């Protein structure tokens, strides 16, 4: 029987008294890949930010449970340590902090949370090299300051690398294909697909069908005006591509 990983019930949330998410319901079971598609301005990024606990958003009603625990009561870092990973649309640059140092802090913070021994530098470097190779990330890139001067493709690859070394139970991909050419898109998609093991779950947020050709979802949801207006399987994405969002938005 399917075990629920993420259960969102009647979620209402917004910024500065403006309600953006208006009664959102979704359950993701272990091992499932869900895609959320919606037009610009539907509140897709708000959803991922609320799930990850970014400051500035207010939840006014509803509940979110992750592995049965109340996710909304956890700090952003606790959510990350529990296994919620947000693959960001625009990863931020942090000058002066070498990428490897950042990754090591991150990996060990998560390991510590799960009562695992922290990795020493040798073990860590070995792991990063192996995982990096699969994504076409060379040793030079991760010596540079975090995301500083990285191309769009390099940034996304680094996000994917982090996803593969942190092994989160739930990966949220927020417009993971934006700014990628087709080759970079394939690399990232392969990386993401490599993480699909029947255990880990994913929530792919996108407004183009393009990415879904490579990361094929189990379920597709149409998201408009703060809630899911239609759910289906991967065919729904193709239908959307053909007809556009307007029809679905009207339907509700």
């Amino acid at each position, binding site marked *: 029987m399917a075990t629920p990983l993420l259960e969102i019930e009647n979620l209402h949330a917004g910024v500065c008294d403006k309600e953006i998410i208006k009664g959102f319901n979704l359950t993701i079971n272990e091992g499932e890949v869900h895609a959320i598609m919606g037009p610009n301005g539907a509140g897709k990024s708000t959803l991922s930010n609320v799930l990850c*606990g970014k400051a500035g958003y207010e939840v006014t009603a509803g509940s979110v449970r992750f592995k049965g625990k109340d996710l909304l009561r956890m700090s*952003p870092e606790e959510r990350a340590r529990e296994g919620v990973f947000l693959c960001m649309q625009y990863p931020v640059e942090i*000058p*002066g*902090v070498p990428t490897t*140092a*950042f990754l090591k802090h991150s990996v060990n*913070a*998560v390991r510590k*949370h799960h009562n695992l021994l922290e990795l020493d530098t040798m073990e860590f470097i070995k792991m990063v090299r192996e995982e990096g190779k699969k994504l076409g990330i060379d040793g030079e890139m991760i010596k540079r300051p975090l995301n500083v001067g990285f191309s769009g493709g390099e940034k996304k690859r680094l996000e994917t690398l982090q996803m593969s070394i942190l092994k989160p139970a739930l990966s949220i991909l927020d417009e993971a294909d934006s700014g990628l050419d087709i080759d970079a898109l394939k690399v990232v998609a392969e990386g993401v697909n490599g993480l699909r093991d029947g255990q880990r779950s994913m929530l792919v947020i996108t407004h183009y069908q393009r990415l879904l050709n490579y990361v094929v979802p189990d379920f597709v949801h149409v998201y408009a005006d703060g809630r899911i207006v239609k759910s289906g399987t991967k065919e729904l994405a193709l239908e959307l591509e053909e007809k556009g969002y307007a029809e679905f938005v009207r339907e509700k």
Partner: protein
Amino acid sequence: MQKNKPEIADESGDKYKYGFVTDIDADTVPKGLNEDIIRLISAKKGEPDWLLEFRLKAFEHWQTMEEPTWAKLAYDKIGYQDLCYYSAPKQKVAPTSLEEVDKELLDTYEKLGIPLKEQEVLAGVVAVDAVFDSVSVATTYRAKLAEKGVIFCSISEAVKEYPDLVKKYLGSVVPYTDNFFACLNSAVFTDGSFVYIPQGVKCPMELSTYFRINAKNTGQFERTLIVADDESYVSYLEGCTAPQRDENQLHAAIVEIVVMKDAEVKYSTVQNWYPGDKDGKGGVYNFVTKRAACRGANSKISWTQVETGSAVTWKYPSCILQGDNSVGEFYSVAITNNHQQADTGTKMIHIGRNTTSKIISKGISAGFSNQTYRGLVKVSPSAVGVRNYSQCDSLLIGSNCGSHTVPYIENRNKTAVIEHEATTSKISDEQLFYCQQRGIGEEEAVSLIVNGFCKEVMQHLPMEFAIEAAKLINISLEGSVG
């Protein structure tokens, strides 16, 4: 290293772990400043006439001077007549060896993490001169250094034992007329360290002076003189702490360095005077004149400073590049939090031909603090082929602090190449969220970002100092976010 936990009267919730007071009998002179006091200090120290004259001339000049107001610092007027200018821990006998140093004093340094028993001093890589209020209480490894001809002792002893050297160099880099605080120091300085590295000698260990203010309402005026003769090398470290008191304490020091032909001096400071509490009460007023003269050709001076302490800092370690091809470097990290103020920077005076200088300054402001980088690059008409590179970066944490950069450039030679880069950035919410999203807590994230920001400077500190300094930076910024 630290066995006893210092007992800090910690009611304010501050994190300054050196804030304890040592209860020891002190020999103090009456408060106030006049010729009699200066004669009394000089007599207590059994000084030769030439030094007393030097002091009296300085005092006479000081009375004609006015306290400078050009720095971007706001502080209450200092009552120079309300201060005590000499305080020495009363020791039963004048110690001739470490075993005879008062236990209270040894314990104090132990608590500060500076053991003075030689076998414990970092396995023989650092020699320490410990200055407690107005006097030097102990200098370690003197015998071992003497084998190489290196002189490392308190300046009071140097006056007695090496009067010719002291007479020749004292005031030769920072004359008593130099500025208000240097002039005051010249009149009343009580102790400090003296270093002489003879020709061709590479000093076999790091030399270190550890300054401690203990007595209440007492100014600390120490004076350090370092002379590196031809082809010699020395790395020198300076550390400082003071008890946590509600009153402001005055510290006005001078460091003079003379670097001869082909010699190199590396001077590192970790300044951690008590910064005052979180509301800005108390703390040390730190007015310091530090200057090195690269007298000989191919000489080099490198200043590295990590400034985390003091309520008010006024300090511009400078390089006079006289010798041809001489090199001056200044690497600085200054951190201010709560209500601290710092006005700090450097001066690079290019006189010799093909002289080069490099300035890397990193300022981090948090809380309600204010910080100014103030620096001068001066090229004289005779200085052909000068090269200077300056980089001043500021990092702001929160929205109530301030950061200012005031670079002065005076160029009188058209062959000079002078570069100046400056950036100001802020730890953004986006950066913090990114770190948190990867499992890294907020304080750890700030520390990661700040350490990355300062790295270029920290790597110039000697290893064991760098670790301490990194810890200190984290402590200084605790509670600056959220």
